[in-house]
């Protein structure tokens, strides 16, 4: 059993790359956790698809206002400087290149930057939400994910097998084992767990890892 980062630790690592004042959209679910780990002295401004910039954390139970929710339909709070806007303006911020970072979950990521994160196939009720919009326009589109599936199969592949969310859109992957950039159709390894050998990491990755520069240790607090 390979040691790996917990989801919380992956979220922590992703948060370290968010600059002070950055405009950031966090996908529903796991990516929302990134907001908890902003480094001291830095404050990102969070965007949610349903029309809020600069919202705060969840209110205490019982203090919810259901007109003040995020894209996951969870209650949030106001902060000084919060702005409201309608849905067309909200997605103008997304597609128009105004967001600095979007951080999303993934079923599969290809070395081409293709992302599959909205559908596991034709069964059940299909639902896409804002996923296909969010992968276009943000200056950086990062994915946070376990490195492999629950069955131990690679999620980082030459080509996605599941229905695509977007083509050539992902720029960086924060996985449970490594930090990998996507450049010119290649996975470029930047950081890996120090306990993991390069060959073991490669064997858990479905496409070739390129290593043009020394690989840094991926180290996080115990979270």
């Amino acid at each position, binding site marked *: 059993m390979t040691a790996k980062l917990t989801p919380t630790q992956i979220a922590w690592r992703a948060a370290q790359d968010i600059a002070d004042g950055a405009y950031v959209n966090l996908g529903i679910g796991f990516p929302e956790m990134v907001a908890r780990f902003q480094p001291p002295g830095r404050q990102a401004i969070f965007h949610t698809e349903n029309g*809020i910039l600069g919202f705060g954390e969840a209110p205490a139970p019982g203090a919810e206002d*259901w007109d003040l929710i995020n894209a996951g339909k969870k209650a949030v709070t106001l902060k000084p400087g919060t702005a*409201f806007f309608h849905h067309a303006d909200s997605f103008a911020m997304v597609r128009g290149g105004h967001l600095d970072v979007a951080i999303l979950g993934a079923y599969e990521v290809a070395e081409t930057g293709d992302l599959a994160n909205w559908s596991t196939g034709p069964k059940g009720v299909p639902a896409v939400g804002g996923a296909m919009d969010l992968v276009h326009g943000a200056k950086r589109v990062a994915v946070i994910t376990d490195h492999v599936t629950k069955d131990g199969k690679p999620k980082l592949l030459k080509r996605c097998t599941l229905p695509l969310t977007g083509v050539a859109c992902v720029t960086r992957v924060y996985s449970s084992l490594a930090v990998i950039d996507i450049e010119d159709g290649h996975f470029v390894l930047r950081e890996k767990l120090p306990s993991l050998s390069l060959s073991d990491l490669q064997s858990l990755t479905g496409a070739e890892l390129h290593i043009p520069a020394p690989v840094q240790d991926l180290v996080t607090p115990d979270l």
Partner: protein
Amino acid sequence: MDKTLPDLATAVAGVTDGMTVMIGGFGGSGAPIELIHALIDRFLATGHPRDLTVINNNAGNGHVGLAALIETGMVRKLICSFPRSADPVVFTERYLAGQIELELVPQGTLAERIRAGGAGIPAFYTPTGYGTDLAHGKKIEEFDGRAYVQERWLKADVALVKAHHGDRLGNLTYRMAARNFNPLMCMAASTTIVQVSRILPPGGIDPESVITPGIFVQGLVLVENPAQEEDLNRAGARYPEAAL
């Protein structure tokens, strides 16, 4: 001029069989629950309207509001981005049984299609969906070296909208994130009916604060203390109460 309507039944009287109806809201925020329930009341009393095409971001939650509208069998087709919720059982069962048609649209594309409908723009190009199943059959064009998908406008016969305050000329404000799709839908329907929690005389809303100008609104109805879908669902509510 006074766009105020006397009651909810009058407000929804213009919705007839086969119409396309935009319903505002994102989940429960900004959802015109009382207008939807008035529509259900009329269907239960008269058997109409039916075979509706409904445009909303979601597909309802629990057994109130949009979910209740679907549950009564009034909706033939739904155009939405995310037909899931905490309790999506009503839509899920009907969809899997082939009793309701679904057109799935990426959320930003849905918003822009509605905006385009209201703005007189019959089609536009977006990067969203390029190379995916949701672009299937759509025209693709390259601009400045990048591929874009052509999307068409969306319009409706009627929009049912929830705003916060309205004046008698139809100028509207919204409450926090309950704004969402509502201002866009006001623009994109032949007839826009709005429920507001307060009706003011002209001048009662600071012109600087008007979000939807009255030109986009045909009727206003007062619902002083509107229900929130989330509160109804937490209380286990169903509409109509007797239905099972």
